[in-house]
């Protein structure tokens, strides 16, 4: 793509198949714990609610952190 002599470079980074599998597993894992958390809330099971909420939030934060870490690593490279 050229415009007035300048070039815009679009880099497409292709993830490997197992990264996609891990992402799908992560999303399913999050959905499972989100459903468990909501269900425990409805059941008035306080302890089950807290444990499942902590696991859900921990999984979410860790997943996002790993994604960000990978993104920054690639950007540097």
């Amino acid at each position: 793509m050229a415009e007035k002599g300048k070039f815009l470079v679009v880099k497409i980074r292709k993830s490997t198949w197992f990264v996609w599998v891990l992402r799908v597993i992560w999303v399913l894992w999050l959905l499972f714990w989100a459903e468990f958390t909501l269900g425990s809330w409805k059941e008035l099971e306080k302890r089950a609610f807290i444990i499942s909420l902590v696991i859900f939030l921990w999984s979410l934060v860790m997943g996002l952190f790993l994604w960000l870490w990978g993104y920054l690593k690639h950007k540097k490279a």
Partner: protein
Amino acid sequence: MNRRDFFKFGFGGAGLAVGCGLASGADNSPSSSGRSVYGHPSWVKMIPMPKLAVDDKVYSRFNASNNIFGSFTRYYGIENRKKLMQESRERRIKYYLEKRPGYRLEDRALADAGWVISRLGGLNRGTRAWTSKSGRTPEQRGVEKYNGSPEEAAQLIKAAARYFGAATVGITMLDRRHIHSQERGKAIFFESANEPYEDEEKLVIPDKCKYAIALSVQMSLDNLQCSPTAISSAGSSMGYSRCEFLVAGLAQFIRGLGYVAIPSVNDLGSSVAIGVDAGLGELGRTNRLITPEFGPYVRLCKVLTDLPLATDKPIDFGLLEFCKVCKRCAEACPANCLSFDDQPSFQVKGEWNNPGHRAWFEDAPKCYAYWQESTSGCSICIPVCPWSKKDKTMIHEIVKASSAKIPALDMFFSVMDEAFGYGRPKDAGKWWSLNLPEYGIDTTQGKG
């Protein structure tokens, strides 16, 4: 580190993953052609005979006066009983003055009010009368009595039972050994009579009453989780009253079709034994029926009839294997009256048990004494059971299905259930501010 801790911290994640994976592959084929609408979940197997064996040489009809309500004084001793009752009265007043949640006037009044319909019936009395003049028979309507096929009749009965408040319903050929030999000071006989009747000496069931309809009524788990308080007693009393309404309504419906119907709750015979035969559930460590849908938080009742009905089969959902390793109810029992044995046996604990069948027999006098001690009865063994769940999250169904298929996971499930806080007693004081559904139960549970 004991066995429970080992499972809790060691194999937690791995076991959960295996459980989830295997549950997704649960058998979805219909369990039984006759139970497609009012059937159990797909992971429940139909079996030809109940899993716990009966010794035909020993098992016979039980004299109901030997049960704990009829003979507590004999088992516990008259002086001990007097002392127990006196202490119970004093404790009742003390709790009341302390305004202890679950033991206040409003809590007691609720539990007492729960019995109001139940008190209208008894063995061949009131709402449980064996005959009735109030309904219209086909003869009075000038038509022939109902003559559908047994399958059609079974479908009608199941629909009507659900309509009158049954959580689950099953039908079996009546095993007469499940019927009490004596009750209320009278012998119970089977005779070739046209109608059931009672005279000065006996109660008579017509020979032609060959079918037993086993019914379960859901109790409020929110109430039972407050055990042992008057709030949990209200869960039981309400369950009994709903049983009363159910059997009275269903019996009248059957009479309206032109057949004999004998309604019964805890009277007349063992609802648990009939429930096991009819496939409502399996016998658990508490020596009570545990259902796949509601665990033990059900009350049982039954109707005997001569209306020809298609019958159901006993079921196997892995409960026997689960109870062998779980033992949560026995650990939680404050009276220490439940068995810790690994295997069920033929060895009864006393005259209050009916011998001749394998079970984990309970020490009933200890249990009933604790009812007096607590001043409000007890049902702790019900909410602590890992099968007692409200099923608002899919994990419970996954665990139940996995347990039914892979007994090796039972210990892990029991431990994780405890770790997640299930079965812990709830604050009875907060019960009054819960936004409960009708009757305190979710009527959609276990209905697919």
